[in-house]
């Protein structure tokens, strides 16, 4: 039987391009596009119009916000003085650290995710070209994210101050190249030093610390030097500007490039491109071997344990709680992902320490941050224990009511959140019992609501999908975040007067009501 003309043409095109860089690039682009489309539409193509409208609205809103933020500077014009260069450099380091953090995560995923690696590595085709394309695409993905974040600022400056500001886009691209190169080299360094078994975990921790670390460090420095809580306070401080290097210092060349200085721009872009080419060329030579070395490591056996006998446990709740804690304890990656947001508790902790006994102003910062973090932690852990149940059929066929099981899982989550919040609560009790009470009530309510939302929106999923849990239900993610914010604000206002919490509690109630109405059918 002869093939159809269309099939023959496709086959000829396939044969002509197969295993070329272009062929791999189109393969990768197709996968990324379909992944993105399914993420945006959630399997419902009609959603594209709605999602596009929301994105457009958000982008316009962000541009208007930037216009409002920079209205004074735009009126007078922005000069290339030390204050401006310092602010741009700070922004660049912030973006760079975010890109580096994201790149580490993407690079490790490329080595460890086995979705198509087994197919690729077992095929007779040379995989080096594919990995060259894949690493280049990682760089593009990392950069696109940062470009989107910076675009309202760059566009407004470019259109309303001076078109030279558009060169900031090239600077961001260059930073993306550096970030990807550094992430690849870090991953390879970890492979060689700590081995493939530990690389992923360590890389994840570095990614979390770098991602949140720079912003937290800025806040911490601002607090320590009494310049407030703002992330940008350090860059606008007169002391910092005074201490900054002179205008002709080499340190400003990325900032000068962002402001349109031609030579700085060319140097920066060329350096980034060369570093990326060298790193891609070096890493892809060994990519296949390194990727093969990770095979089976995700299912690590762990250390051989000594059998100490079965323990007597008081009731089914204890059995389930112990199982949940054991699983979390033994999954450092999941644990690091869950506890990542606790990094943001560093600054309120620091605030409490620095401002001990200096009035009540700090409580308006400390209380909401902790309540918010507790709500988010509870949401993440609830998803892991409730939806991310690996042996759900075993649990469903056991002679225990669904209510008992869910209650035990919720208990496991509440206990962990309680343990994390307790030190702050105890510390706060010495400062202000009223603040401690507000924190306790806020934390309890935020935790309760997060757990309940996850119960309403529970669906069977693999724990390894934790980072993408928001994809399964955007309603759950949004309502969880909004309710946490409302209880955080409510707890802070309740510190001033209990009655101030009422409207926020009502709003939280409405959000919970909407979440309940929109819950998937069949969930109680």
């Amino acid at each position, binding site marked *: 039987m002869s093939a159809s003309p269309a099939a023959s043409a496709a086959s000829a095109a396939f044969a002509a391009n197969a295993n070329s860089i272009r062929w791999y690039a189109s393969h990768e682009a197709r996968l990324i596009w379909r992944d993105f489309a399914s993420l945006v539409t959630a399997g419902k193509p009609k959603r594209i119009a709605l999602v596009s409208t929301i994105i457009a609205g958000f982008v316009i809103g962000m541009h208007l916000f930037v216009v409002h933020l920079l209205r004074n500077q735009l009126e007078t014009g922005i000069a290339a003085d030390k204050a401006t260069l310092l602010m741009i450099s700070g922004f660049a380091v912030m973006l760079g650290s975010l890109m580096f953090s994201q790149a580490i995560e993407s690079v490790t995923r490329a080595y460890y995710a086995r979705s198509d690696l087994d197919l690729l590595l077992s095929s007779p085709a040379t995989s080096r070209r594919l990995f060259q394309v894949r690493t280049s695409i990682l760089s593009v993905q990392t950069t696109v994210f940062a470009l989107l974040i910076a675009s309202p600022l760059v566009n407004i400056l470019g259109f309303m101050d001076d078109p030279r500001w558009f060169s900031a886009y090239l600077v961001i691209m260059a930073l993306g190249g550096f970030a990807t190169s550094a992430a690849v080299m870090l991953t390879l360094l970890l492979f060689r030093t700590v081995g493939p078994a530990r690389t992923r975990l360590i890389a994840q921790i570095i990614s979390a610390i770098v991602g949140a670390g720079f912003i937290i460090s800025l806040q911490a420095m601002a607090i320590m030097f009494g310049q407030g809580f703002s992330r940008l306070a350090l860059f606008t401080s007169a002391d910092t500007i005074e201490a900054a290097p002179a205008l002709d210092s080499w340190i400003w060349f990325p900032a000068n490039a962002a402001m349109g200085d031609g030579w700085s721009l060319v140097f920066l872009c060329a350096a980034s491109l060369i570093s990326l080419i060298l790193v891609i060329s070096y890493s892809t030579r060994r990519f296949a071997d390194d990727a093969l070395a990770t095979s*089976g490591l*995700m*299912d*690590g*056996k*762990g250390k*051989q*344990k*000594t*059998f100490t*006998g*079965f*323990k*007597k*446990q008081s009731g*089914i709740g*204890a*059995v389930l709680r*112990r*199982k949940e804690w*054991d*699983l979390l304890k*033994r*999954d450092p990656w999941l644990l690091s992902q869950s506890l990542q947001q606790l990094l943001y508790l560093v600054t309120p902790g620091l605030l409490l320490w620095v401002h001990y006994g200096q009035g009540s102003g700090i409580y308006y910062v400390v209380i909401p941050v902790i309540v918010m973090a507790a709500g988010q932690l509870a949401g993440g852990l609830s998803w892991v224990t409730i939806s991310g149940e*690996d*042996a*759900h*059929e*075993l*649990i*469903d*066929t*056991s*002679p*225990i*009511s669904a209510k008992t099981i869910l209650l035990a899982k919720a208990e496991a989550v509440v206990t962990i959140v309680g343990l994390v919040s307790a030190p702050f609560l105890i510390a706060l009790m010495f400062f202000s019992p009223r603040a401690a009470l507000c924190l306790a009530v806020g934390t309890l309510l935020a935790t309760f609501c997060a757990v309940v939302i996850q119960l309403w929106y529970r669906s069977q999923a693999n724990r390894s999908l934790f980072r993408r849990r928001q994809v399964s239900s955007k309603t759950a993610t949004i309502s969880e975040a909004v309710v946490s914010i409302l209880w955080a604000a409510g707890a802070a206002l309740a510190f001033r007067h209990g009655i101030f919490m009422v409207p926020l509690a009502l709003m939280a109630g409405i959000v919970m009501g909407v979440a309940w109405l929109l819950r998937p059918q069949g969930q109680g």
Partner: protein
Amino acid sequence: MSSPYALEITDLNKSFDRPAVNGLDLKVHGGEFYALLGPNGAGKTTTLRMVAGLLQPDSGDISVFGTRLAADPLEAKRKIAWVSDEPMIYDKLTPLEYLEFVSGLWAVDPREAERRSLDLVEWLGLGPHAMERCGGFSKGMRQKVALAGALVHEPQLIILDEPLTGLDAGSARQVKDVLLSRVKRGTTIIMTTHILEVAERMAERIGVIAEGRLVAEGTFAELRNRSGGENATLEEVFLDIVESNEETTDVGSLAA
């Protein structure tokens, strides 16, 4: 209420896009090894998932040793163990920790659970790996851990959905031996399998399900007599039953 039947299914119905189980009636005696056969999509797994409480029937009745599943699901589940073709175990637990957890779910006394667990891991050849995490285990080892989990609480009825899929000959032999020994001790086993030789050798009675209905049932000898081939293998008997059912359905739909 005592019942001679380990499992009694009456007029069971379940539809997804189309009827998956269509007025199924089935009775399995206590202490019996029953094989449920059928072509792909016949409704075997759907039926057994409803028995295990993993799916809600649209209508019909399921009783396990006289306990109606709809009226007292927890009491019914106390008597059942479910093993699927894709063993769902915890990668981060060791086999013994998994068995300790399962024992806890079924409220087995810890000392008794420990004794049974140690026996089971040895019996299933898991001894050397008893304190290693299951994450690195092969499909066969995972299936054996899941089977040990099903046996540790000594259920009266074990339901297995394609338990031998993907097992090597040695592992399959171990699993079969364990199952047969349980039947000798009075446990009822219902198993679906595509390996007809296993059904032929192990099952006391065989049920053939097609398009959601039970189309034939009996011992292997009875089924062979029915299809008229004295020396026919179960494969030939099975194909004959399924084909004649398809022809009947086709004639029925033409007549309609």
